[in-house]
């Protein structure tokens, strides 16, 4: 095949991420946009953008994420588990790592040994402990997720007992009703996400490699700090970590060329 580039498109429930690699594996393009109402339209607009920049038919494309089936032009589809793993191995430049991916709709825990997935776990149907949970709670407190994190840092230890987003929201409303400071409620929200991830991790055997956070929450320093505290281990992350899935997909595309 004479395609010049490999593209990875990760259609998440909240955001669509794209990475384009050239033949040497260098990142030549990255893009993040809201998935919006129609993942098909979003995928089409991504295709349009990258074709404009790099030319038509110059890509081998792998789609991933929950919307991977909505990318009809992709040459292949690979699950977000495999893509996050492959992407994280490249981003963190380590072969034995443990990945926590907190996405919009689900939370994934992936154990990677010698560069390949050895075990993984995803949360169930419920959105507790996900980016969506954070968004819903921030909304209830009339702040942005970023502001919620900043507030939580100043909050006092407070707990939400319910793991379900809907029930937790009513708990938050109760706390508001009782006059609990917003900072304390924000603390409880982040604490609940971190606790949920920590509890889930008990079901698999993590290795001694670093613990890395990927997905939309990687920009939130406070979440990283609280995760490190819960796991008693420095959680690594980097701004590009939210592209881990797209990066993995692009690497799969490259390997299939």
């Amino acid at each position: 095949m004479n395609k010049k580039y490999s593209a990875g498109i990760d259609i998440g429930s909240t955001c669509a991420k794209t990475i384009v690699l050239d033949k040497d594996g260098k990142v030549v393009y990255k893009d993040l946009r809201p998935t919006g109402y129609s993942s098909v339209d979003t995928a089409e607009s991504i295709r349009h953008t990258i074709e404009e920049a790099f030319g038509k038919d110059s890509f081998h494309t792998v789609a991933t994420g929950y919307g991977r089936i909505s990318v009809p032009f992709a040459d292949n589809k690979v699950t977000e588990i495999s893509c996050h793993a492959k992407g994280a191995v490249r981003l963190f430049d380590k072969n034995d790592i443990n990945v926590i991916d907190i996405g919009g709709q689900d939370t994934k825990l992936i154990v990677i040994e010698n560069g390949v997935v050895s075990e993984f776990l995803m949360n169930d149907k419920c959105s507790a402990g996900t980016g969506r949970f954070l968004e819903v709670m921030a909304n209830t407190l009339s702040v942005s997720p970023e502001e919620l994190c900043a507030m939580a840092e100043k909050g006092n230890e407070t707990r939400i007992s319910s793991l379900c987003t809907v029930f937790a929201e009513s708990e938050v409303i109760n706390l508001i009703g009782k006059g609990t400071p917003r900072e304390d409620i924000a603390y409880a929200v982040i604490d609940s996400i971190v606790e949920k991830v920590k509890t889930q991790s008990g079901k698999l055997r993590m290795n001694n490699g670093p613990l890395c956070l990927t997905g939309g929450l990687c920009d939130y320093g406070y979440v990283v700090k609280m995760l490190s505290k819960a796991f008693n281990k420095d959680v690594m992350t980097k701004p590009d970590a939210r592209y881990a899935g797209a990066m993995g997909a692009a690497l799969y595309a490259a390997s299939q060329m």
Partner: protein
Amino acid sequence: MADYVKMWKELGMDLEAHDNLCQVLPTAVGDVFLTQENRPKAMDFWDLVISEVHGIRPAELIEEQKKGRKVFGTFCVFVPDEIIIALNGIVTGLCGGSQFWVPGGEAVLPKNTCPLIKASVGARLGKTCPFFRIADVYVGETTCDGKKKAYEILGEDVPMIIMDVPQMKRPKDIKKWKDEIADFAAKVEDITGNKLTVEKLKEAIDIINNKRKAMKRVYDARKSLNLPISGRDTLLMTQISFFDDPVRCAEMCNKLADELEERIKNGVSVVKEDTKRILVTGTPLAVPNWKLHNIIETSGAAVVCEEMCTGTRYFENLVDNSGNTLDELFMALSERYMKNNCACFTPNPGRIEDIIRLAKEYKADGVIDCSLKFCGLYDIEKKHVSEALKKEGIPVLSLETDYEDSDSGQLRTRIEAFVEMMKG
């Protein structure tokens, strides 16, 4: 399709609701089964039965009832069919595998009851299952708390016999189950008006043993790396075997096994060479619950064995019929049935040994341990299952699902990722 409307009407079924059910089934059958390539020819029989699942067999049962035979509806593989057969009764499975019946069950049961129980109760109370209308008596058993209490609710509507399954496997428990079988035999004698004899029981033991051997032949063929039949097709065969006449069931399974053995000889496989082989374990898959198998087999893998009640637990282990008294035969029955490693037992190391043994026998690349939502017994046991398999170096994926289709995307992602992981 034959016209069964008159029969359904006479059975007092809710025809309008039943029509809605009948409308969705052909699509499901088409999507799950008829899209497969290169199916064994002998599957024609099961295709026909499933296409008229509420017609063909119910009509036969009604004919037999007219001759004075009694029909026993059962919920579980612990019920000793041999006793019923020996007393000229008929055993049939009951409905409970579709989301269609769940809302009806939720009308009287807590929402957090497993879908199998909710669907069974819904099928009975909603009058949309001919088997539930036909049976003269229902045989329940104490294999979980949900069923125990649901039987009390069902008992308001239908005559029930409850067998008390022991929860441990000490010698006194096996003795206790023998006594339960003896009590059950007395009740079945009352209902059928027939007298149990050693000869009749031995004959019935042979009939059911032959059915088990025939089913095992089909399963044994799946051990071949040259996979001659899909998991979906085998599952359908197993599901229908709960409803069919045991002699015909054995005959049909043997015919299928002949064809599968021929396929192995000729190198005919239903999957590509690099297809990952999956052993499925967990809660039963009642007809028409094909969701898990369908997702697995459209995600680059094939199901090669089911360690479940709708699988190996139904036919493994034969009953020793060398006894010369009813008491000896009851004990032989108890010993066979008590080898079943249902999660209702504590402790239950036998199930883990079975899973590991079967994974090796069937050359599985990985195990999917899937339980129905709100089945605490199987859900809790997942921890030991997963630890034991990891120790053996066998990849395992633990899942939980119900009858709704809404989680099929999430299931597919996990299963595809599991397959990708096995491919490395």
